[in-house]
């Protein structure tokens, strides 16, 4: 990555945290997505982060290796008045815990901020290096 290695590495972190926030927002948006009891529930999406290969020593960073999905089982809720309810009055809600999603949201946001701070500091550092011996 050369001169701007720190910026590139922190940029890969920003990518991962952005995707994490995307996944959390998808989960929260679908937290009330109801399906009929004979269908699979909406599956929560989780990001699998993986460190980049750093054999040379000057690269590094992180990338999203893929997504993992939560249970398709969901949870059965008794709502006889619901249009999708089965004969016994059950519908299927996704198995997503809102507080856990909110915590993940905070973690992703803080991670994003940390990486953005690294980029700022790295830029300041490079600018400082350019002023060496100016006067």
């Amino acid at each position, binding site marked *: 990555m050369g001169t*701007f290695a720190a910026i590139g590495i922190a940029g890969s972190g920003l990518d991962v945290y952005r995707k994490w926030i995307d996944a959390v927002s998808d989960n929260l948006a679908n937290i009330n997505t109801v399906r009929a009891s004979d269908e699979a529930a909406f599956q929560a999406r989780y990001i699998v982060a993986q460190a980049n290969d750093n054999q040379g020593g000057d690269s590094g960073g992180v990338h999203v290796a893929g997504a993992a999905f939560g249970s398709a089982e969901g949870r059965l809720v008794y709502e006889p008045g619901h249009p999708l309810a089965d004969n016994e009055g059950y519908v299927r809600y996704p198995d997503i815990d809102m507080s856990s999603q909110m915590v993940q949201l905070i973690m992703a946001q803080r991670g994003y901020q940390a990486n953005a701070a690294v980029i700022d500091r790295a830029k300041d550092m490079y600018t400082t290096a350019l002023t060496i011996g100016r006067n």
Partner: protein
Amino acid sequence: MSIPPISALSAAAPASFVQPTQATQAAGNTDGAFGTSLASAIDGLQAMQSTSSALAIKAVTGDLADVHDYTIASTQAAVAMELTATIRNRAVDAFNEIMRMQA
């Protein structure tokens, strides 16, 4: 006290005439090397700036996937620009310093 340098002076003159040409050739080579590396640095800078402006166009047209892609590219282009300008200014300073030299 003898003063032999008169003959030595005439002997030294051709040598001092030859030396500057060698020095000029060496300086010419160095100039080429510096020019080449400066040119390649400017090529890299131009690539960074075109990446940055392509991302800026994407941002305006709504095709930008990641906001930070653009800000990072523009930061890199700005720092690289500053770096190239600093190197060029230092080179010009060095040249001016040499031009100010007097015997």
